């Protein structure tokens, strides 16, 4: 399904325009694809260029300019639910192909290729022009748009919900040695502990907690007195790490 624009004024919907052409113009004059007969609108006010599933809005040097989501703009890469303002008129951009994809064929890499020399039977890939200049002329064939639409992001559904561990602030506090009492907040995804060339361990933040991994050095660090294996080891609240003769405590703050 192609993206569309919904024209409205003062909250009342006037018309819907599917973005089914590579370039569509918006303006006061009747030859525009989206004609808005109002004196605040320039003869040719703006254009929308659509390349497969992406649409770009461009101001055609209009007298009164354009707004997207309330911000004046000359050129804008449209995202689902963006609202374009032209004078008193609003155009809402809807591109909700995301919801139509199935997990199975989601995000598969596809080839855009130059027109096929021989149409091999059973080839399901649509023949598409290679190179950008050629792409502009043909891209809106529905056959071309559909497989591409299948691959758009269902990111939110698949990404693991942020568990408590990553939201909590974790701290490593040095217990012994000259730096005793010092606290190190683990803000970054990766924190390196130790001296390069002597003994190094890395603390990594993952969605389900913090892990310590031995990276280099003849002796492995210990956690609560037990030496680490070569595998990452998950840290629990108040674990005591010993690394290069220095003891430190790992805990969650607050």
């Amino acid at each position, binding site marked *: 399904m192609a993206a569309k624009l919904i024209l409205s004024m003062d909250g009342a919907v006037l018309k819907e325009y599917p973005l089914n052409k590579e370039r569509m113009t918006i303006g006061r004059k009747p030859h525009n694809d989206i004609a808005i007969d109002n004196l605040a609108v320039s003869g040719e006010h703006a254009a929308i260029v659509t390349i497969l599933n992406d649409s770009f809005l461009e101001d055609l040097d209009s007298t009164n300019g354009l707004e997207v989501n309330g911000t004046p703009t000359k050129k804008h890469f449209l995202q689902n639910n963006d609202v374009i303002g032209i004078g008193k008129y609003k155009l809402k951009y809807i591109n909700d192909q995301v919801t139509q994809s199935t997990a199975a064929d989601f995000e*598969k890499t596809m080839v855009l290729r130059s027109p096929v020399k021989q149409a091999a039977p059973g080839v*399901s890939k649509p023949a598409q022009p290679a190179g950008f200049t050629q792409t502009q002329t043909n891209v809106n064939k529905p056959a071309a748009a559909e497989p591409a639409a299948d691959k758009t992001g269902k990111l939110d559904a698949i990404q693991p919900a942020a568990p408590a561990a990553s939201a909590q602030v974790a701290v490593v506090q040095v217990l012994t040695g000259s730096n005793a009492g010092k606290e190190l907040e683990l803000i970054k995804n990766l924190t390196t502990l130790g001296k390069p060339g002597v003994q190094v361990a890395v603390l990594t933040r993952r969605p389900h907690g913090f892990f310590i991994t031995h990276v280099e050095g003849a002796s492995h660090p210990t956690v609560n007195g037990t030496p680490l294996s070569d595998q990452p080891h998950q840290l629990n609240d108040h674990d005591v790490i010993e690394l290069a003769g220095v003891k430190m405590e790992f805990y969650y703050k607050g």
Partner: protein
Amino acid sequence: MKINEALEIVSQTNSGMVRSHNEDSVACEPSCGLVVLADGMGGYNAGEVASGIAVSVVATELCQRLLGESPTDSDDVTGEELGVLLLRENIQKANSSIFHASQSQPQYAGMGTTIVSGLFYDNRVVVGHIGDSRMYRMREGTLGSITRDHSLLQEQIDAGIISIEDARLSKNKNLVTRAVGIDAEVEVEIHVHDVLVGDIYLLCSDGLNDMVEDEDIQSTLSAFQSNLPLAASQLIQLANDNGGRDNVSVILVKVKGKFVVPRGWLAKLINCFRK
């Protein structure tokens, strides 16, 4: 230093969190300084077949030729350096093998693959690639991509249609404009780069760079640079923690010393007897 002593190479591949099978293939040939990674595409298991053909053709054919010849020799006909010529020719050979298989076997129709490969010799690396699998280089703590994707999005970035920041929001990801095995002929993009001791090269499929930001790849590589196998598993874990929507493969090459091809009359004489 011999090439297999100068380079430390590790590779790892994983099907990710969503896909049931792995269509990526990797090959490492430390003795001839070659690494190859391919990300296949096509229905059923055709993607695996395509990427498998690509890496095995390039790895076996190229190493076979380098047994008897030096990559720094120049070709008799074109005068081109043998290392560069061999890499290009063998990627093209892989292209025709895959193309012919897909023409003759209906279940493989339309299969194809990306490829990225590096041939290390004489303190240089020859990089050949097609599609959106990448090679990165970390030098003095800074990571940068040394290949440019053959993808619609990259072409749009080059043409100034879309900014790099906006490109992250694009819905046209994963459309490659060039692939191995789709047509009878293919153009291989080849570049030669100087190699410095301490460099780390990362070859990866888009399952890594789509899921993990370049900054996070960089910080992972610098934290784990003294332990390459851990660095590889950490990168894959990072992609999977972020959703792992695609197969993820990485090859890491760390340059530990200089590797010069012996030149001069003595080396040539010894080489003569070896043949």
